């Protein structure tokens, strides 16, 4: 089924698709607007440090910045590979 057929047969109108996509995107962009500009660089450097010890992928690191009235928090999530615990990758 081509994409065009999908638009023709589906009950979801393209306008509601547009609305849904925009709501997700705009919410995402609004939170990232308030993030400090050093975030991508920080993420990159952290990844390099982790990679000295574990063989993780580029996308195995997740950095989330949050802000409320009282404090700013940086949440770090790194998924380690299953097979090589503690093993140092070849560099």
């Amino acid at each position, binding site marked *: 089924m081509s994409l065009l057929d999908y638009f023709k047969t589906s009950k979801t*109108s393209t*306008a509601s698709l547009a609305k849904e996509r*925009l*709501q997700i*995107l*705009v919410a995402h*962009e609004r939170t990232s607007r308030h993030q400090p500009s050093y975030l991508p660089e920080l993420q990159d450097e952290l990844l390099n440090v982790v990679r000295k010890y574990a063989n993780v992928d580029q996308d195995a690191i997740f950095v989330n910045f949050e802000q409320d009235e009282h404090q700013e928090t940086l949440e770090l999530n790194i998924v380690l590979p299953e097979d090589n615990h503690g093993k140092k990758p070849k560099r």
Partner: protein
Amino acid sequence: MARIIVVTSGKGGVGKTTTSAAIAMGLAKKGHKTAVIDFDVGLRNLDLIMGCERRVVYDFINVVNGEATLHQALIKDKNCSQLYILPASQTRDKDALSKEGVEKVLEELSKTFKYIVCDSPAGIEKGAHLAMYFADDAFVVTNPEVSSVRDSDRMLGLMSSKSRRAEQNQEPIKEYLLLSRYSPDRVKLGEMLSVEDVQEILSLPLLGVIPESKSVLNASNAGIPIILDEKSDAGQAYADIVARYLGEDKPHRFIEDKKGFFGKLFGGK
């Protein structure tokens, strides 16, 4: 003290210049002394839409650089004695404008004008930033289309953090949604974002909906702001917008499909 209105959008070609010309004319026709400034340095177009392109001698940059006085550069509109146009430079690039230069011109205009309408260039860079920096009110022109809505939201973010009001911790810029090029019939068919959809996403008060209209091209062909075409739907939409902005209570129009029964048959919401 003048009220400074920026007409902005982020995305290009959504109807900022059309809107600037229309609302400036509308405000002036209501008896308020109004100046409209073209901030699109290097790509001046407001003069064409206002029909004064052959009377441009000096421009905004000349005034900023002290090569001409404001009095020399302002063009008095041929249709309305309360309206003046400050054209952009066609030859200089946008670096010729500075915050200090713009501030000086706005301050001088503020002494004698009631409203100053700033026609922003597209984008989020220097020209667009300077056009909104000193604003009191923002008319956010948006088309019912994904990229335009996204860019409007981007612009709203900038106005809430990078404007003078934001930087000096003053009351924020008053932002209004102007939804332009709207086709109620396509909304009914589920092919176009509805005014409620766009309002929900951007959470802005609606100043008005301007329908997609053939009369806009006719007006720009002739160099007459669309609001002077009182018979046209788009002209009436802009007249309503000006009235609402000035505090008049006007119910919204041009939102419903005129082919009511047909629309109901297809059951949009």
